[in-house]
Structure formats: C-alpha cells, structure tokens
C-alpha cells in the first residue's frame, strides 16, 4: 500500500519525519497510477494546527478518482473528525496521538464505526541504547511507552489494525525495522502493516515473510510511479509469497 503524506496542498516525502515537498495534487494525479495500488493511506502531516477542514476537502478531491480502500488521518481527535473523513470518501480512520491522549474517544469511535474502521498508527523510535518507544504528535513527543504495550492496549480498545512505522527507518531506504515489526506481530491478534524504510522490492518480502506483517507500506511515492508497484508485486510473488490481492495488469488496470 501507498502512504501519502499531505501538508496543506502539498504531498510530502518524509525522512525520519523530516518533510520535503514532492508535488501538489495535480502532479500526483499525473504521475501516480492509482489503479495499481491495493490500498492507500493518506495522512495529514501538517505540524501544529492541522486545519482539518482543508485536509478533508483535499482528500475529497483526491478520492474522486481513486477506487481503492483508503485510510485517512492525522490529527483525528473527535467523532466529528472521523465522520468528516468518512464523508470525504475514506474507509478507515487512522488515529495515533488520540490512543494515548484520549482512549475513550478511540473506544467510542470503535463502538460507532466498528473495529475494522479504526487503524492505530504507531510511530516507534529507538533511543541510543536501541530501546523502542512510541512517539506521538507527529513524532515530536516521546510517550516512553513500549510500542508492543501500546499495540496491545489499542487492541483492547477494539482497534482493527496497526500501522507500524519506524521513525528511524522512515525514508532511509534501509528496509523495515524487522525486530520491531516481529515483536508487534507476535503480541497482537489484529493485522499489522509494516511501514518506514523501504528502498528495494526485497524489503517488502522481508516485511511479510521474515517479520510476519500482514501488509507492507511504502511512503516514498517514487516507488509507485509508473510500473513500480506492478514490479514490486511481481517480485514478491516470484519470491514465493502468495499474498491475496489482484496481480495488477498495468494495461488492464487502465481499461476501467
């Protein structure tokens, strides 16, 4: 799946959560082939005041031409935020800081929309000794909480999926933090999506086969330009992983 990060009208690439603009909606639509993506994650990565209404409007624009499942979030604090994102065409809501700051809200979102609708995005970072901790507020606040413990807590809240990002690996092209992924996969019964660090197709294979992730995500959109995703999926299958999902035929995909 592709993770798109939006800051105002710009799409960003991220390296260890430091953002760089890559284009606006027009350029994204020009270069990205949404019909080769299995799933899309769209995050409002604007720091500080998220300006949710503006994000919702841009999401709505993006999703007019995009018929894949979409999880959206970034600064989701209330049921109203959830409803606004769903109304814009999102299928799932991504929560992060709220799981720590306001678990009651997360529980009420689960009650209202169902487990399958709520995705918990965990941003994990290692300290100098290699100890993991979950960070919130766009990676600016250390919760001092072990990502595994946090994942378990959100599973108890009824969250349906974990979107697990390694801040250290994010944008580095060194591959997923497999130990991190493995430990969270082992601890929870809900699907875990590995994120952060993909630089080569083999990293997708490692995430699924070696770390047990149920899905793999990449945020560097250049992986997805042109035939990138078709090639990635073909590579993963050649390596003996038969994960479900359409093997996109690039041309057939266009024959909508």
């Amino acid at each position, binding site marked *: 799946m592709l993770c798109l990060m939006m800051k105002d009208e710009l799409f960003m690439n991220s390296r260890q959560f430091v953002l760089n603009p890559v284009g606006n909606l027009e350029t994204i639509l020009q270069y990205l082939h949404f*019909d080769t993506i*299995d*799933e899309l994650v769209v995050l409002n990565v604007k720091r500080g005041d998220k300006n949710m209404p503006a994000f919702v409007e841009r999401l*709505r624009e993006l*999703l*007019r*031409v*995009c*018929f*894949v*499942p*979409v999880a959206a979030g970034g600064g989701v604090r209330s049921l109203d935020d959830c409803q606004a994102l*769903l*109304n*814009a*065409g*999102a*299928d*799932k809501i991504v929560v992060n800081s709220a799981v720590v700051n306001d678990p009651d809200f997360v529980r009420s979102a689960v*009650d*209202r*929309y*169902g*487990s*399958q*609708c709520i995705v918990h995005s965990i941003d994990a970072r290692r300290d100098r000794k290699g100890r993991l901790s979950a960070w919130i507020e766009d990676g600016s606040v250390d919760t001092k909480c072990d990502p595994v413990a946090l994942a378990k807590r959100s599973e108890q809240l009824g969250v*349906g*999926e974990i979107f697990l990002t390694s801040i250290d690996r994010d944008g580095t092209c060194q591959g997923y933090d497999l130990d991190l992924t493995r430990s969270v996969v082992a601890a929870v*019964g*809900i*699907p875990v999506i590995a994120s952060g660090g993909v630089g080569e197709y083999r990293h997708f294979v490692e995430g699924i086969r070696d770390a047990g992730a*149920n*899905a793999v995500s990449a945020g560097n959109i250049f992986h997805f330009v042109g035939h990138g995703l078709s090639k990635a999926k073909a590579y993963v299958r050649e390596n003996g992983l038969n994960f*479900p*999902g*359409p093997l996109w035929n690039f041309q*057939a*995909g266009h*024959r*909508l």
Partner: protein
Amino acid sequence: MIAIIDYGMGNLRSVANALDFIGVDNEITSDHERIRAADRLVLPGVGAFGAAMQALEQRGLRRLLEQQVRSEGKLILGICLGMQLFAACSNEGGIHEGLGWIKGDVTRIDSADVNLKVPHIGWNATELRSHSRLFADIPSPGDFYYVHSYAMRCDDVLISAQCDYGTRVVAAVEHGNVLGTQFHPEKSQAQGLAVLRNFVALSA
C-alpha cells in the same frame, strides 16, 4: 437516478464517486421523496449492525425501504454492512433484528485457520457463480476488497459469490430485486466498477 441511502454511517462518498465515474446519475440522500423518486437504491454501510438498524429506524427509513423494496420491488444493492442488514438478525454486540429480506443471519467470522485474523481485511479471490446477475461477464475467481468482522449465513441458493477465509464467507447474495455484496465494489478497482455497472444495467 440511484439513491445512495444516507443513514449517518456509511462510506457514502466513495460509492457516489464510483457511480459518478461510471457515468450514473446518483444522489446521497435520506430524503424520503428522493428515495421514492429513485429507480434503484444502494445501501452502503460501515459500522456496527445494531447502530445501523437504529439509525434506519430513527430516520423512518426502515419503513420506507420496506415499502420501496418489498412492495414496489425496487432494486437495491447492499454493500458490506448494507448487505448484512438484509438478514433476519445479527449477533454483533447483542442480538439485533435486521430487515429480514434474506433468510439468514449474521455472525462473527469463525475461521478454522488461527493464522487468519479477524477482521477480514484485504483483497480476496472470490468464486463467482455462473447464475449471478451481478457478476455477469466477470471472470471467476474475481479479486475483491473486504473489510468485515461479521458475515452472513444464508440459504445456498441465494449465494452468488463466496470466498475462502479459513471458512466459507458469503461474498454476495441475490434474491430477486435484493442484491448484496460483502466486499466493497467501490473499492475493488476495475472489477468492482464492473459489478456496479452490472447492477445499473439490471432490470427489476
């Protein structure tokens, strides 16, 4: 015009986008007059069964749908939770009565494979039955996108597609003018759009 029933808890916009894309006049509405004026209906749904039935009741939509679908014979496509609501009952978070148009019930997915997690989220190869009207001209197995923890159980003759998730999962039902998909056609790319096109082409 297709009325996409708005009862306050669905992925309405994506259904509308998909219908827009295939060039079909549609409207997201809870207005009874507009629903009466529509030539077919789509009942989407994201959420919990009990809350959804309550939301339909509160808006007077249960009675209206009953009249439109059962008495008038208007075509309706239920998507995901929308399809599940057609069943007689569900045991999601207590026992809840459904619309009762499909003789069956809705229960939590009980996968025999412990490695398969619930909710069932993602693309799954789906066996399409040849008698189906929704899947006419779509090669079987198809690939469709699912997001659900509960699934329908019903008479085999009503099932027009199924997938395997450690247990048989009913993927689509067709019972006269009442049609439903457990998967999300509006999120299943080209094949999903083909299902919507088939629905649009049906005559009651």
